[in-house]
């Protein structure tokens, strides 16, 4: 039985805009095991972004429980959530979000600054991860001197520094051409092969086949789960 990385139960999120209540997530259940590569898909308005924010501990659900590594994190304080983001979650953004004035190595080390890793260890880890994403020769370059694909590799290396529970990638290939996008997916697959848990949020239906499991959202609910390993699709009722 694989260890559970995260478990969501009946997650609801309602935005209040004056008098108007806008329910975005209407009771989402999902669990993701360690070592899984899961895609969360849905057309715009399906609640993808909100799901991403809640999974990434950037936002709190209105109700429901979220257990991360067995710990209920749904209603923790901002300070605790920040600490958890730092050590448990590796963010990869669509537009890379690298710091243009820092070198590749410094960019990779940023999350370790916040977890107060000593300098020597920071250097060792950043070099090791740069090698892992095949950027050892670019350590002293700045993001502006790199191609989009290389930038995203830096971001992936950065997401791994604190050995997180899972990588949370938001449309990681959205700003890349198809060939480079495929390369980045290749990097994710390599990481997946060595046991990294990856959650990728995308609207691109073409990626249905590349992961272990696809969770489709529609209208704030889980609509369909495609299990590529077992080769079965489960559909749920949505209104």
């Amino acid at each position, binding site marked *: 039985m694989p260890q559970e990385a995260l478990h969501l139960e009946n997650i609801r999120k309602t935005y209040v805009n004056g008098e108007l209540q806008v329910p975005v997530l209407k009771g989402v259940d999902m669990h993701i095991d360690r070592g899984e590569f899961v895609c969360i898909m849905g057309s715009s308005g399906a609640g993808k*972004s909100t799901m991403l*924010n809640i999974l*990434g501990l*950037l*936002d709190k659900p209105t109700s429901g429980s979220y257990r991360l590594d067995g710990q209920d994190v749904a209603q923790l304080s*901002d*300070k605790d959530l*920040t*600490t958890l*983001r*730092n*050590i448990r979650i590796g*963010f990869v*953004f669509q*537009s890379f*979000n690298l*710091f243009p*004035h820092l070198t590749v190595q410094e960019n990779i080390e*940023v*999350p370790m*600054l*916040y*977890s*107060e890793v000593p300098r020597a260890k920071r250097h060792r880890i950043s070099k090791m991860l740069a090698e892992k994403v095949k950027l050892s020769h670019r350590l002293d370059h700045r993001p502006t001197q790199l191609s989009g694909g290389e930038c995203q590799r830096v971001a992936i290396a*950065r997401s791994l520094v*604190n050995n997180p529970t899972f990588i949370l990638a938001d449309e990681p290939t959205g700003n890349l051409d198809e060939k480079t996008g495929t390369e980045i997916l290749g990097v994710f697959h390599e990481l997946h092969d060595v046991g990294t848990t990856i959650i990728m949020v995308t609207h691109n239906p073409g990626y249905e086949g590349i992961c272990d499991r696809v969770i489709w959202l529609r209208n704030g609910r889980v609509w369909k789960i495609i299990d590529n390993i077992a080769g079965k699709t489960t559909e749920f009722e949505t209104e």
Partner: protein
Amino acid sequence: MKLTDQIWLSFHNLMLHKIRSVLTSLGIIFGVGSVIAMLAISEGAKIQAMEQIEAMGVDKIILSTKVPPATSKDVSDTSTSSLLDTYGLTEKDREHISRMDNVESICVARDGRKRIMHGMKRLGHKLVGVSLDFLDESRSVITQGRWLSAADGSNNVCVLGANARRSLFPLGQKDVVGATILIEDMAYKVIGVLENRYGTAFDGIGSPNDNIFISMKASDAILGKAAYDTSQRTIKIENVDYDTFIIKIRDISYIDHTSRRITSYMNKIHADTKDWNVLVPLDLLHQQEQTQNIFTVVMGSIAGISLLVGGIGIMNIMLANVYERRKEIGTRRALGAQKSDIIRQFLFETIFLTSIGGGLGVALGVGIAECVTILANWPVAFSTWFILLALLISAFTGIIFGTYPAWKAAQQNPIEVLRAE
């Protein structure tokens, strides 16, 4: 985040925009610069004024003769009273005052009221008869030759003040000592040159630098107590015993008491004529100090206003900076930066800005003050405390005006700022 990493990060961020950083801190640079310059100039003026007052001696009371105000009798009746004027400090006064408890000694000086001619030109210098302790009591020094001594008796020997020497002899002439000068047809042998480095001026006789000194004995014998003033068309004889008493006080803590006693004595004896004036340098010093304190408060207010303006300028730019960098802030927050980390990052940036501005401002202020010294020949004085104070205050300005932008930065919602592409 570790403090050292934090400081490095903030410094690094500023170095990315060197020109912008300098421009941002311009307000502080000029604020601190003008404060330093003004303080240096006022401090210089203060030190000069204090030196002048202190040179008179804080343990002294200066009692001087004053030409009595013209009475109606003087104007209408031009007979006897206008020919012989008797007024001023007398030998009797000297004897009486010297017997007072707290009076240690009295140094006396008498203005000879003689015209000192240099060729055809009348010079503004005075022939002054003094007691021998005048050199020490006036805190003057002999730069050439020697001072008057008891052995000179009533010989016609004189000591020149530095300025008198300059007017009477060409600058290059070295053998001033031994030379002879003429004062109203009387020959005086120069035995020394005196200089007063404090620029002190004594009531009644003026600055020692401008005087020509002879001994009191010589002045008694040659000038007599009466002096002819031929500067007016009518011949007028003034009978003045002494022009100035430099009264040395034994215990300075009772100086007020002693000065009151002298005043009441003089009021009694010289009741009809207002021909005297009492001056306590210590009081002047206190007055000067009070004036200086007011000046410092005014300076402080100007400093406060200029730093306020500079600080608001910085706050404005930092707020714009926060808006411009909200993607960076959001990314940092997502990657694990606590609100406190963001606050510290921006606060340190502001403190760096104001401190660097303060440092440059000190340099600018010192430069301005030096220019003032060179161009306007004003004395300036720097003390380390106000340079330190300026730096401290500018750093403090950074804290005051950096807190709001930093807090604003930390309040950025990472979701919103990450979405804002």
